[in-house]
Each structure stands twice: as structure tokens, then as C-alpha cells.
């Protein structure tokens, strides 16, 4: 065997010329005839790279489809460790307090925390019956009965039961206040919880310590009730750390919460809020006895930014396939080389570029990847408040007619994901299963698919505004992508009688919140996958309704949607919403940000997952060949 790749860079050119001398020293003695690279062109089954196919979105498979990436022989021995790259280390074991809540925390939670539900890559909710079962027993009042699996235990052997559920309620309902005020004069909650959404409408579950089931009764109907069946933290640890006894299935804690003993609850809340936090960049872990798991893996150790998970021997459900999962901190600019070198085995970058995709494409023997639509999207918002430049609906329509939306898709999304398409809805994204079905019912979504300069000009004329009509177009000053997009809009809309004033802003969101500082703005939202979370963007006076949009139909539909407990029904009600948001244009939606998931060709199991749970959502099923 001659030189494999360029071992010593300077030598190669000379070596090629001199290699006519023939022969070689060292290495495998087999007189192999493969001359230079070690490309494996073996035929592949490709079975393990199923892609999440919603009705609409079919993420394109990487490596140019000719060699469908996966070269894993199912009978080969599997490696004992898989390394998953993370851009940031998780902030703590409890992902539900506001300091730790992040996607990177969720990446670990995926395999260490059991839940009644699993969010699928297409955004649908699937019950996890290994963890337990739930059923809606009444619509009015909305009542849901949850039952933990009989043999469900924390990895330290303590059963998962009523005290864990009651602690979850105590934390997420936001009921318990310490009585103190913060700097701004707000009440300080005993639990520093990231969100009380939904839980704040739940009455205290009735029951006694040791019960395997509990019932949530909602004071108001809540559309996303199904997404609440997760986030159970080990109550016995919190109780012990707050100085309570954890004997009798946590009777002491159950009593404290039921008696509303605020002093005790404050102590429990203090531990719940900060006691499970990790140090920044994970130089080490807190005592692992405080971090029991309810999923197939448990945290084992951490060093130098690497977090190691081992299989949870007490897990009662389907065990993880690989012994050890390691989460490694990797710089988003360096991960391709790290994966080529085998330092990380799987990664999904938060901001993939066309450059990264071409690097991935260049090494099909080492890396498999999939591109697709993510759950965040770009859009141009208008100031349509009474004082705003876009208050007149004709001006908004004129602007929509001249924005080159398709060109933006072609220029900014397609280089990464060739299947990228024009986004036509606001509450549904192409990555979600329901997108296509809803879109078919919103015919006016296609009103502005093509640029119509004369039409725009005519509308602007009929609006009777002074031309050229000045538009201060705001975007994040640090983003060259946004700057390019504004230039595209300017090139097109200036012909229609607008005068786009390029206004880069270092602090876009502060500007957006102050009325009168901007006329149009391009930025991104990330979809949450929840039914009701978009409300504050579209209703009159909503927190993120920066443009001051107000439409009676929209307000009315939202009011009904948030009280609809049937997801399918809520989706159907939003058809009217989508129609109205085009008829009385709210904004210009552009495209879903393209996403990438990549993994080593030795690994089988990963799929592209655009939800906030990320690539590791099914890491328990991954295997890696040991060569």
C-alpha cells in the first residue's frame, strides 16, 4: 500500500513523482491495489436513514444520493461510545428553571428524563406508554388522568409517583410566592420556573403519597394540555436537600405542599431553582447522587466540557443500544473537521451555511447528512399601527406585490436545502405534518407568489401617498444575510414607488418594541410547536405584535383557539386565521430556515429533527460500528 492520503503534506507531490521507484515499507502487508484514498464504495442498504416525511416536507438526503450515506453492516460489532456534539453545554440537570432552560439542556433530557409524551420530528405528539399512560376524562372542566407505569423508578431505585407529580405542579403552577419583591417590584415565586404556561390553570392534584396516578383538572380549557405531561423532577432529592424526610414515598413533601407550608416550599423551591445547576462549560458535575434519571441513560461524569451518560440499569423500558453517550462541546465553525476526524459522531448546527453543506458533500465516505426545513422562519413585519407607514392596507398589499419572495428562497434557503419552498402560512411550517393540508384550504395564500411591479405601483397610487414613499427597513446590524435581503427588496420595491432606507440596527428587538422607530423589519421567529403560543404575535395588543396590527376576526379566532382542547379542531379553526392574515396582510412570510443534521457514516439511527429536541431525540436507539 502506498501513501494513504497526504500524511506529510510537503512530501506528497514529490512522492507521487518518486513513487515510480515502486515498493513500500510498513503498514498492512497485503499487497492491496487501492492506490490513494480509502473511499469505501460498498453498496449500502440505506435502511437506517429514514427521513421524517411529513405530508409535505421530504428533507433531502445528503451525500448526493448516489451513495446513501449509511455504510453500517447490521452484524458488525458495535462501539461502546457515541459522541454527540453540542454548541453549548447544558446549564443544569433541571431544564425547567429559567437559568438552565435551553435546547442544549433538552438534548440531554431526551435520553435521561422520561415523559408521558414524545414530540416527533414532524411536530406531532406521541404518547410514551413505557413511562405511563394518560387519558382525557372530561372536556368541561378539562380533566386529564395520568398514571405512571407500575415499575417506573428513578435510577436510584425510588419509585416515580405522586410526590414527583405534586412537586411538578407546585413548581410550574407558579402558585407559591415567597412574599418578597424583586428590583422591578414583581412578586418572587418560590420556584424560578421557565414557564407557567398551562400549569397555572391546573388545580392542585388530589392524592396521597405513593399514588401511581394523579388527575389534572383545568380551571380553563387549555389548547396545549397534551404537551404538559413532562418535566417531572425527582421530588425525593429536592425534599432531602431542603431538609425534609423522603420516607413514606415523600409524605413530608406532599404534606408541605398540600398544607401550603410556604417556608418549607421556599426551601424546596430554592434547591429546585439552583441546586441542580451545572458549572459553566462543565468542568465537573455536582454529586451524581443528586441527578437520578427516569430515562434509558443517566449522567455519569463530566470533564473539560464533555458530559458522559451511561446506560441506566434501573430503566424499565426499552434499554439504550449503546453503552455510553458523550456530549462534547464543539465550536460551530469547527465541527465538520471534528466529525471527519471522529471526535464527534453526530451534530446538528444551529446555523448551517451553504459552505458547510458543500464540505459535507465532499466526504461521503465519512459523513452522512440530511437537510430539511427547520422550525424557524424568516419574515418581514410591517408597522401597521394607526401612526405606522403601513397602516393603509393598500400600502401593505403594494409592498407584498414587490417583495421578491421566491428570489429570496432561491438565494438564501436553497443553497443549503434544495427542497426549500416559499412559506405561505404563519402558524404552520413545512416541517410540520399539517402544513400541506391547511395550505390547500387557504387559496389566497398564493396572492403574492410572484413579483408584480405595475400592480404594486397602481396600488400605491390609489393609496394616494407621496412617492417615493419612504420606508425605514430595520434588521440586525450583525447579519450580512439580512443586509443582503434588504438590498433585494430595495432593488425591487424602489421601482414600484417605495424608497427603502437601509437601517441596520445593533439592537433590533428593542427598536421593534418602540413604536415610531421603524417601518419594516426582517427577522426570524422560531416555532414552538404549540397550538396557542402564537397568540401574542397576532392579537391586538399582544407582546410580540410589534407592528400594532389589529383585526377583529383574528382576535376572535385566537380567543376560540386557545380554549380548544382538541388539537385537530384547533388546527382547522386556524384556517380562517391564515386567510384573514393574508386578506388583511399582517406581514410577508419568506421561508423556513434550512436545517442540517450530520452524523458519522459509522453511526446508524439518527434522523433530521427540526424540533427543539434536536438530533439526540432518539439517541437511545443509535448504534455505531466498531469497524
Amino acid at each position: 500500500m502506498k501513501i494513504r492520503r497526504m500524511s506529510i503534506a510537503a512530501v506528497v507531490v514529490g512522492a507521487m513523482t518518486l513513487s515510480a521507484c515502486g515498493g513500500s515499507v510498513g503498514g498492512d502487508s497485503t499487497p492491496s491495489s487501492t492506490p490513494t484514498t480509502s473511499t469505501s464504495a460498498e453498496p449500502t442498504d440505506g435502511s437506517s436513514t429514514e427521513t421524517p416525511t411529513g405530508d409535505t416536507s421530504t428533507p433531502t438526503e445528503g451525500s448526493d444520493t448516489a451513495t446513501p450515506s449509511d455504510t453500517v453492516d447490521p452484524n458488525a460489532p458495535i462501539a461502546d461510545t457515541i459522541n454527540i456534539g453540542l454548541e453549548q453545554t447544558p446549564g443544569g440537570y433541571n431544564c425547567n428553571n429559567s437559568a438552565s432552560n435551553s435546547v442544549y439542556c433538552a438534548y440531554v433530557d431526551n435520553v435521561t428524563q422520561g415523559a408521558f409524551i414524545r414530540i416527533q420530528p414532524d411536530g406531532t405528539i406521541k404518547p410514551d406508554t413505557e413511562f405511563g399512560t394518560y387519558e382525557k376524562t372530561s372536556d368541561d372542566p378539562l380533566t386529564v388522568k395520568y398514571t405512571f407505569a407500575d415499575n417506573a423508578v428513578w435510577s436510584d431505585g425510588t419509585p416515580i409517583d405522586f410526590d414527583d407529580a405534586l412537586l411538578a405542579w407546585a413548581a410550574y403552577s407558579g402558585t407559591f410566592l415567597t412574599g418578597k419583591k424583586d428590583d422591578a417590584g414583581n412578586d418572587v415565586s418560590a420556584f424560578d420556573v421557565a414557564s407557567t404556561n398551562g400549569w397555572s390553570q391546573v388545580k392542585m392534584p388530589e392524592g396521597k403519597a405513593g399514588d401511581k396516578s394523579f388527575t389534572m383538572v383545568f380551571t380553563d380549557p387549555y389548547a396545549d394540555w397534551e404537551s404538559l405531561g413532562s418535566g417531572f423532577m425527582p421530588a425525593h432529592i429536592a425534599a432531602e436537600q431542603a431538609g425534609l424526610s423522603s420516607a413514606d414515598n415523600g409524605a413530608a413533601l406532599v404534606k408541605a405542599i398540600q398544607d401550603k407550608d410556604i417556608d418549607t416550599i421556599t426551601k424546596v423551591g430554592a434547591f429546585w431553582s439552583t441546586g441542580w445547576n451545572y458549572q459553566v462549560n462543565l468542568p465537573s458535575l455536582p454529586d451524581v447522587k443528586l441527578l437520578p434519571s427516569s430515562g434509558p441513560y443517566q449522567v455519569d461524569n463530566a470533564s473539560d466540557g464533555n458530559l458522559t451518560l451511561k446506560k441506566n440499569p434501573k430503566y424499565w423500558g426499552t434499554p439504550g443500544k449503546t453503552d455510553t453517550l458523550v456530549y462534547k462541546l464543539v465550536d460551530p465553525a469547527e465541527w465538520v473537521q471534528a466529525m471527519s476526524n471522529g471526535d464527534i459522531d453526530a451534530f446538528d448546527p444551529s446555523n448551517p451555511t451553504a459552505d458547510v453543506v458543500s464540505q459535507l458533500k465532499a466526504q461521503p465516505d465519512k459523513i452522512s447528512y440530511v437537510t430539511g426545513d427547520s422550525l424557524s422562519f424568516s419574515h418581514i413585519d410591517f408597522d401597521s399601527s394607526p401612526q405606522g407607514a403601513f397602516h393603509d392596507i393598500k400600502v401593505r398589499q403594494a409592498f407584498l406585490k414587490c417583495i421578491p419572495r421566491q428570489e429570496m428562497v432561491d438565494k438564501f434557503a436553497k443553497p443549503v436545502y434544495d427542497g426549500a419552498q416559499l412559506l405561505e402560512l404563519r402558524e404552520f411550517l413545512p416541517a410540520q405534518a399539517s402544513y400541506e393540508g391547511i395550505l390547500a384550504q387557504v387559496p389566497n395564500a398564493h396572492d403574492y407568489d410572484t413579483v408584480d411591479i405595475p400592480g404594486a405601483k397602481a396600488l400605491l397610487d390609489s393609496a394616494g401617498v407621496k412617492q417615493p414613499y419612504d420606508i425605514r427597513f430595520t434588521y440586525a446590524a450583525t447579519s450580512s444575510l439580512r443586509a443582503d435581503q434588504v438590498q433585494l427588496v430595495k432593488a425591487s420595491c424602489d421601482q414600484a414607488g417605495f424608497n427603502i432606507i437601509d437601517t441596520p440596527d445593533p439592537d433590533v428587538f428593542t427598536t421593534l418594541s418602540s413604536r415610531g422607530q421603524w417601518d419594516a423589519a426582517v427577522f426570524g421567529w422560531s416555532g414552538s410547536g404549540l397550538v396557542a403560543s402564537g397568540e401574542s404575535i397576532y392579537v391586538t395588543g399582544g407582546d410580540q405584535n410589534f407592528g400594532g396590527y389589529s383585526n377583529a376576526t383574528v382576535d376572535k379566532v385566537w380567543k376560540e383557539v386557545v380554549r380548544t382542547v382538541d388539537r385537530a379542531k384547533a388546527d382547522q379553526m386556524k384556517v380562517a386565521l391564515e386567510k384573514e392574515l393574508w386578506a388583511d396582510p399582517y406581514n410577508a412570510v419568506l421561508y423556513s430556515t434550512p436545517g442540517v443534521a450530520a452524523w458519522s457514516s459509522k453511526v446508524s439511527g439518527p434522523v433530521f429533527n427540526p424540533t427543539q429536541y434536536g438530533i439526540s431525540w432518539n439517541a437511545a436507539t443509535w448504534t455505531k460500528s466498531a469497524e
Partner: protein
Amino acid sequence: MLVFIVRRLVVSFFIVLASTALTFLLVALSGNPLGDLLELRGPTRDAKIALRTQSLHLNSSIPERYVYWLQDVGRCIWPGSECTLGYNRDSKPVLPMLQTAIGSTLRLVLVATVLALVLGVVTGVITALRQYSVFDYIVTFVAFLCFSLPVFFVSTLLKQYVAIDLNTWLGNPALSYGALALISIIAGLFWSLLIGGGIRRAGIVFAAGFAATFGMLYLLLVTDFFTSPYFGIVGVGIFSIAAAVGWTGLFSGLSQRSRPVLTSAVATAVAGTIVVWVLQKALNNAGWLLLIGTTVGLLVLGVLIGRVLGGQIGKLAGRVSGLVGFTVALLMVFDRLLQAYPALFAATQRRPVPTIGASTPNLKGGFWVEQLDQVMHLILPTLAIMLISFAGYTRYTRASMLDVMGQDYVRTARAKGLNNRTVIVRHAFRNALIPLATLVAFDFAGILGGAVVTETVFGWNGMGKLFTDALTNVDPNPAMAFFLITAIATVIFNMLADIAYAYLDPRIKLG
């Protein structure tokens, strides 16, 4: 002297105070710390904004926030109060972040700086002695090339060739005869340029260098050195004796008069090798204590042997033998790391050189495998840093050495009949190092600032990464912690440089 130090410390305190106030203002004005949270959508937004506002005191004005920060610093000096240096944007205390960062930066940058210093000084001296030779021109060219290359570019190249491709090669180490010949030609050229002399001598050196490299590589390849490397007690012995002769030649010459030095140095090499052989079992499960103990022991052993066998020049013999003892310890470590290689090779799935991180998690196999793993993680970033700082040291040493070599006292020394080695090593070299003291003091202060790009690119959570992350996230407290440490280090090392200068050069007086 004491007055000078006290005066400097008082002035330094106010300099640090003023500079922190200025930087705090700049950091606070650099952006909106809530920027990333305002982009969030969904139910968690408000709670996160409230928490960050609270922990960074964002409702207070900038001067008030600076006073809060000064209080946080004050708590670190005041005994009995909780020292956090404030909180970062995620409401975590800054002090542990700073401790981790300093730890990994010292590991990374200290090694690189020391290596670059040693290599740079040696190269600088040689180029000064061979001024305007081909070797001098080549080193000058390479030094400026390295100096002008951006680190991130060097790093990408290093990752491709020294990690990805080298790992692939190590998986099945083989060279064609052509490649072997080419490497040997390069090595031969290197040696003939380094040693210099006329055409005839250059030719002989080239031939010898070519033959030696070719033979050596051939032997290493056919004996599978690159898959299961060996060195062993025999290697330690042979190389120790070679080092004994080398160090004696450099520091005392190999003349009849310095025969006792050579005797004691070789004796140390032999005795040291025996000690290493005896300790073999114990060293299998070594820890830092045993390793440092053995090293110091070997050094002391050398000094003692030198004093005893050195006779009239016992002092010199002691120093040289001490150095030999230290060399034996280094060779012992080298041998141990090579022995650990196969275990690490297997544990890293046949790819021992990583491109990111500071250590391989869950490594089993004991102390030496862990140390080898650390070395492997250090290779790329150390090379990247060295390539840059090496250039500076070479140029400084060369200039300073040339300056000294032209001085009258060097001519006097030659005139009184001292041999070339003594003039260079004893008289010229020492004085040439004085200007370098300032540079080194500055660089060591700079070490604590970390290597911003290198740390980011190679995934080390050091001071540089702490600082850049803080700046990009508009996270004032970690940025200020960074400034505090680097500002203090700068003023202190500045003072030390002045003191060292006065000590080294009697013409300078402090006061």
C-alpha cells in the same frame, strides 16, 4: 528597592481601577445583554428576561452597575464574604468559570510559550552565528511567514494534515520508497544547512543525514514502531549517555582539562538509567507525586555525582550532571508515554490525535495513558501558538546576539585566547538574554490572557474563550473578570521585568 515596589503597587492599583472603569463602560455600551432573549417566542421568554435583569442589575444605570461590580470584587478580598465576582448572563457565579478558564489556559499556553521560547532562542543564536548564511535566510523567511499567517488558517491546515490525515496514516503506517527518499533528502538538506561549512563538508553532512534518516525511518517502519512504539530502558540508557556527552561538550568542552565533567556526566547517565530501571514497577501506576519526586531525585543525584567526581571543577560538573539527571527523567517520561500509546490508540478508535477538546472522557488505563491523551490534545493548539510566537523570539534573540557579538569585550575575550565555545556560551549568550527578559515578562503576563483564536478553534475553555464568549454575548461580568486578571498580571509582570532588569544589568538602578 522596597520604596520602589510600594510606590509601583500604589500607582498600579489606581491604574487597574481606572482601566476597569473604562472597560466596564465599554462592555456595558457594547450591546443589549437581553438581545438573545428578546428574539425568543413562547412561554419561557418573560421569566428568562426577568431573571437576567435581576442578576445583571439591568434596571440600574451603568455607574451603579459598576459599583455593584466593585462590591462583588471587594467581597473576594474581604474575608468571610461570598466571593462570586458577580453573575454571568445565565445567573451562574463567575468565579468558578474564571478558575476553570485559568486552569486550562495555563495548561495550554504555558507549555507552548516555554517551548517556543527555548526553540526560538536556540534558533536565534544559531542564525546569529551563521549570519547571512542560507540557513539564516531560510529561518528568516519561515519566521516571517509564520508570523504573518492568521491562526485560524494555520489551525485548519494543522487539523487537516496533522490530525485527520496523520490519524488515517497511523491507522496503517506505510511509506512508499519514493516518499521515504524524499523525507530523507529534506532531512539531509536540513542538517547540511544547519551545520554549514564548505561544499565538501556540506556534501558529507548531507549524505550522512540522508542515510541516517532513511535507515532510521526504514527500521522504524519495518519494526512497526508507529503502531506499537518502543524505547525501553535501553533507549533511555543510550540517549542519556548521548545527552551526557552533548551537554558536556556544550558547557565545558571535551578537552582533557574538563575530563572530570564528562566522567561525572556519563556516570550520572548510567546511574540514572539504573534508578529508572529499579523504579520501573512503581512507575507503572505513577502519580504526579512520584513523577516529580523521581525527577527531583535524579537531578539531585546528578549534582551530587558531579560534586564528588568533579574535583576542582566540581561546581561546573555538578551543574552539567544535574542537567543530565533531568534529561534522564525526561527520557523516562518519553519512554512511558510511548508505552502507553497502544492503549490510547485502541481507546480512541485508532484516531489518537484529536482536533477539539482538552481530554478524552472516560479514559481507562491509568496515569500514563491519561498523560499521553493530554499530550495528544495539546499537539495541535501548541503547534499553532508556537508557530506564531516562535518567530518573535527568533528575531529578538538573533538581533540581540549580533549586537553583543560586536561588542568590545567579546573581542577582548577572543584576544586573550578563549576558545569560540567559551566566548559564545559564557560571555556573549548570557548578555544577549538581558533584553529578552522584558519580552518574556510581557509574554508571561499575556499568557493569562489566553490565546483567543486558538482556544476557540480547538475547543479549549480558557481565558481567551471566556473573553470572546462574554463579548459576543454582551455578558459584562465574565468580561470584567478577564480584564481584572489580565490587568493585574500586566502591571505585576511589568514591575517584575523592571526589577529583573536592574538585577541582570548592574548599570541600571531603581529608585
